[in-house]
């Protein structure tokens, strides 16, 4: 009499077992660290150049996002918010005028600094410099900030190599991404101090999958770009189908070059909740995992 209910229990448990094999949440391995704080009082007599530290008055917070496994492709800034910021006296630092008392967060290292580390394991984020939080109370010792970041994560980047001619109309594909040289501009003799050749590259397809493009001569020598090679393509990650990138060659490159293109095959969206504390003294963050090597293939 007891054997039938036991069988039913085993059958009922099967789907549960299948559920437990679901993929782990990639957001769980991402750590959010307090990276910096600025507290700025009001400028003297509202004079713009009398702003302490040349900043808008209020509280500015910065975070480091550190990933052990996933590669940080970018931040979806329209889905990333500070939802609660209070000091230890109970004062809320979010602006009352915010319709739902939330504050957008933005990449903390806009031009000229990239926001993602070269190994794509660390990202700097923060309150926008033009939209700081309110000042903490005079008696405050610490601030607690709560919210969530929405990130684009990848497992790996693949490198493909393409022998191309640097002329208008040259086109090649990497999976469902198409690259086309839209414009080639040679610098005028008087303008040759820094740049010899400008290339406007049109990207079509899921452009968020593109990470970076570097150019080499056929002997394998890296061709230097003005302002450095753009190692990190995605400061703001959001799905777009078309984009133009610019490459400024310091020295005139050969007509035929090898373009090494790094892309990822799939991006996962992950919501990373956080609750972080900021005080005058901040705790150091841990080191991330070592840099991965990109798998290489191509049509060289």
């Amino acid at each position: 009499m007891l054997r039938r209910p036991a069988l039913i229990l085993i059958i009922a448990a099967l789907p549960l077992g299948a559920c437990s094999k679901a993929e782990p949440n990639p957001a769980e391995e991402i750590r959010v660290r307090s990276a910096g704080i600025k507290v700025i009082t009001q400028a003297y007599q509202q004079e713009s150049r009398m702003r302490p530290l040349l900043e808008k008055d209020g509280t500015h917070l910065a975070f480091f996002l550190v990933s052990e496994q996933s590669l940080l492709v970018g931040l979806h800034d329209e889905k990333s918010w500070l939802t609660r910021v209070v000091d230890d006296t109970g004062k809320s630092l979010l602006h009352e005028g915010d319709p739902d008392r939330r504050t957008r967060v933005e990449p903390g290292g806009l031009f000229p600094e990239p926001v993602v580390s070269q190994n794509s394991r660390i990202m700097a984020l923060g309150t926008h410099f033009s939209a700081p939080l309110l000042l903490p109370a005079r008696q405050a010792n610490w601030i607690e900030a709560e919210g969530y970041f929405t990130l684009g994560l990848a497992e790996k980047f693949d490198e493909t190599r393409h022998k191309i001619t640097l002329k208008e109309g040259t086109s090649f594909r990497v999976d469902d991404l198409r690259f086309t040289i839209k414009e080639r501009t040679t610098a005028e003799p008087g303008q040759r101090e820094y740049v010899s050749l400008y290339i406007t590259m049109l990207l079509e397809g899921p452009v968020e999958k593109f990470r970076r493009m570097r150019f080499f001569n056929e002997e394998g020598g890296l061709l230097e770009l003005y302002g450095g090679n753009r190692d990190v393509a995605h400061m703001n990650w959001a799905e777009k189908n078309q984009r133009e990138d610019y490459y400024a060659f310091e020295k005139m490159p050969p007509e035929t070059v090898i373009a090494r293109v790094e892309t990822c095959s799939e991006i996962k969206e992950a919501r990373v909740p956080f609750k972080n504390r900021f005080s005058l003294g901040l705790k150091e963050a841990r080191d991330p995992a070592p840099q991965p090597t990109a798998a290489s293939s191509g049509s060289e």
Partner: protein
Amino acid sequence: MKAIAKCLIIPACVWLASVMPGASETGDFEVRPAGFEVRLAAPGGSDRVNAFVNSRGAGTVLGILVVSQDRLIAGIEPENSRITKVTDDTGKELLDTEENKPGKFWGFPHVSKDARALLLMSNTLLPPAPEARQIQVEGHILVGVAEKLTEETHEIPLEKGSSWSQDGLTYTIQKIEHERDQPKTVTRVSYRLEGPLEKRRQLLFLDQTGVPLDHGHNAEDVSHYLWKGSRDDDAEDFVSFRGTPPEPAIVQVQTWPSLQEREIPFLINYRLGLPEARPKTSGEE
């Protein structure tokens, strides 16, 4: 027991007063904390990723505001102004003694238009200990001060060789250049100064109604941020403005008739909650 209690209470009150965030007053001057930045380096020592734009690695930057009710501040004398000690309440010393000139202020101080306030920034200091709740800063600021400012207008032909004098300073136009920048032409007037250069403050061209022409950043440039600093060595300067000046041109010149040196020692405390930076109103203690 009462005597012992008093002995304990009085030093405790003195200590509390010293660690409360706030100003240090020296005669006519009040020195206040005006803001701070504390930042950590990215994990793994990545120098590409930083907490804030325009700042690298770990460190502390402090904003210091000097306000005067009675005197006008011409500017700072940078070589003899120093932060001499910075410690947090865990005892950690934040002054980086390995720097070339430890405790030197950041090179771009600002003086307010009304010359009543001077805003300074420290160079990057070490970050405080993780447990720190306060930072105490000690130092001295050497400033040029005046009791009054001379502001006069001069009608001059806008041409090479035009010259005028004020407070012992002689201005002579060296060169006039015009640049088309729609919708208005930009005029750049280069001039040479002779006399005690530290007395200069500002030079603006006016329209026929006495209103300054659009000088862009020049209007903001109350030139003596660095009193006895690098600018004083340069007897050649220029001013640029948009629009057409009247004939003869009207130039408004601010100079210091008499300057004195004043050293302002200070001892101020920073906490997370800072006092509002505002000028004292008359009668306010």
